[in-house]
């Protein structure tokens, strides 16, 4: 059983890191699309109708999907001054608490985002622009996916906490 959990943590870590690295590609694409728009608009006097929406969608995807990577690297922003004030044992317990609270909050957020997602899945929401893409629908699904990723990675972190295999912790939980 213990090995099964450890295996899960390992797999989850690599999934998060893999997706996180994939997010770099999305950002590169986003930069390319935005820079291209400048060239098209001012170089060739022919602005595109798709660049804004595409750039936003790419960036939003990277933001949201990076969450596993950020969590795996313990890079969430928090105030950890208190670490210097309490004993290492107390701090260890507090760290578990931080992760449990985060998992609980994100779980409730997922529940909150669930119905809006079902709604756009049933009745597609478009952007209402010239491109009229399904961006609003996509973003609502994306947020749920990000939350699920966050929870799964938190679970992996909690397993590592229990098994004391966390390694160096730099930032928040």
């Amino acid at each position, binding site marked *: 059983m213990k090995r099964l959990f450890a295996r899960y943590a390992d797999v989850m870590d690599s999934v998060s890191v893999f997706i996180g690295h994939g997010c770099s590609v999305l950002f590169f694409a986003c*930069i390319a699309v935005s820079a291209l728009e400048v060239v098209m608009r001012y170089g060739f006097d022919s602005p595109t109708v798709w660049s804004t929406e595409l750039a936003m969608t790419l960036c939003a995807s990277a933001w949201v999907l990076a969450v596993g990577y950020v969590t795996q690297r313990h890079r969430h*922003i928090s105030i950890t001054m208190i670490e210097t004030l309490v004993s290492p044992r107390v701090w260890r317990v507090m760290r578990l608490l*931080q992760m449990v609270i985060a998992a609980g909050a994100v779980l409730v957020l997922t529940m909150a985002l669930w119905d809006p997602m079902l709604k756009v899945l049933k009745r597609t929401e478009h952007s209402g622009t010239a491109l009229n893409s399904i961006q609003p629908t996509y973003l609502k699904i994306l947020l749920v996916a990000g939350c699920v990723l966050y929870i799964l990675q938190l679970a992996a972190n909690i397993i590592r906490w229990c098994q004391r295999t966390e390694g160096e912790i730099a930032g928040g939980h």
Partner: protein
Amino acid sequence: MGIELITLLIVVALLALMALGVPLGITTLTVSLATAILYFGERAGFFIVAANVGEVLHKYELIAVPFFVFMANVLERSGIAQSLFDSMAILGGRFRGSVAVQTCVVAVVLAAMSGIMGGEIVMLGLIALPQMLRLGYDRKLSIGIICAAGALATLIPPSVVLIVYGLAAQVSITKLFAASAVPGLILASLFIIYILIRVRFNPALAPIYDIPETGLPLFQRVKYLKGVVLPGLLIGAVLGVIYSGIATVTEAAAVGAVGALVVAAVRNELSWKMARDAMRQTVLTVGSIIWLVLGAVSLIGIYNRIGGGEFLRGLLTSLDIAPILVIVVMMLIVMVLGTFLEWIAIIFITVPIFAPVVVDLGFDPVWFGVLFAMNIQIYYLSPPFGPACFFLKSVAPKDIQLQEIFAAVLPFIALQAVGLFLVLFFPDLALWLPNLLD
């Protein structure tokens, strides 16, 4: 339950979760979810949080943030700071305190390329600090300059702080950029004047040093300008694109990101690995920032709905003092929050409440944005949560303690406060440039 009591409970809950070390984004999210569900029940509560959280991903201007972060990361990995510093040392010549003054100037140039605080302090900490210490400069003076001048990255445009403020207050980011340029230079000048005065009265603080090239006549030294040319072009490209109205701030940021890669390529420092690492770092930074925004936006949405914004605006406007003092009160609140909160959280929590009051009192929200960004400068330095100090600590020689850094920045915090009050009482310092562009 009255809004006063709810406000108090919200603040207590926020502080408790933060003290526990819960990430700030989760802290605000938890409190907003709890408030929403308790106040509206599950269905309406869930809806209001989901709607506000979802809207964050529709904010086009926010895309500029990863671009500027990436740009800074590329510059950090290229040797631009080093060659800037070298050319400045040679161009500047020798006078007492010259290295310290050059550090300020280099910091300003870097600030005009970078939109985030951190990288610049790391760069200066790696390049300028060892140099000053080796030459026998006073430790505290050296440390203070690097933290204070390095923090200018988010006051001198481009600035991610101003972008986020512009989003929260719904004012033109281009105008904010134009308005903050002069105050940024004022702060830099204050730093330089302070250095010159200090070393004049206490020469032991800054020995005169010798680089052979600085002995050459000026026209021969000019050839060392080359370290300045590329950064200059990059700055010109980004700011030029923004102010000429050619492109949106977001597109200018994209141009800047491409420009940074081009500069690195011209300097033969671009590699796939370098670009990749810079982007992975960007993913981590931005990926953590977005949760701060999500949480804060969610909290302010629910707080507004239960009448909190109205309540706090009422409190502020009912203060029986001169309007300008209301602004001072707001600045003090930001300063207090700055001792323990992250800047994005400060902006998203205070600005939606402050900005309408600022407008009601007859002030320009652009001017207030500049004051806000100057206040954030203080936040970077001020203990106990002074991010600029943490950044310097991470690269400073091991024997430099955090306490020493905090002591070293104190006079510079005073200078930042002087600058803040200058702009507070002479709004034209900030506003003449944007008005000119209008």
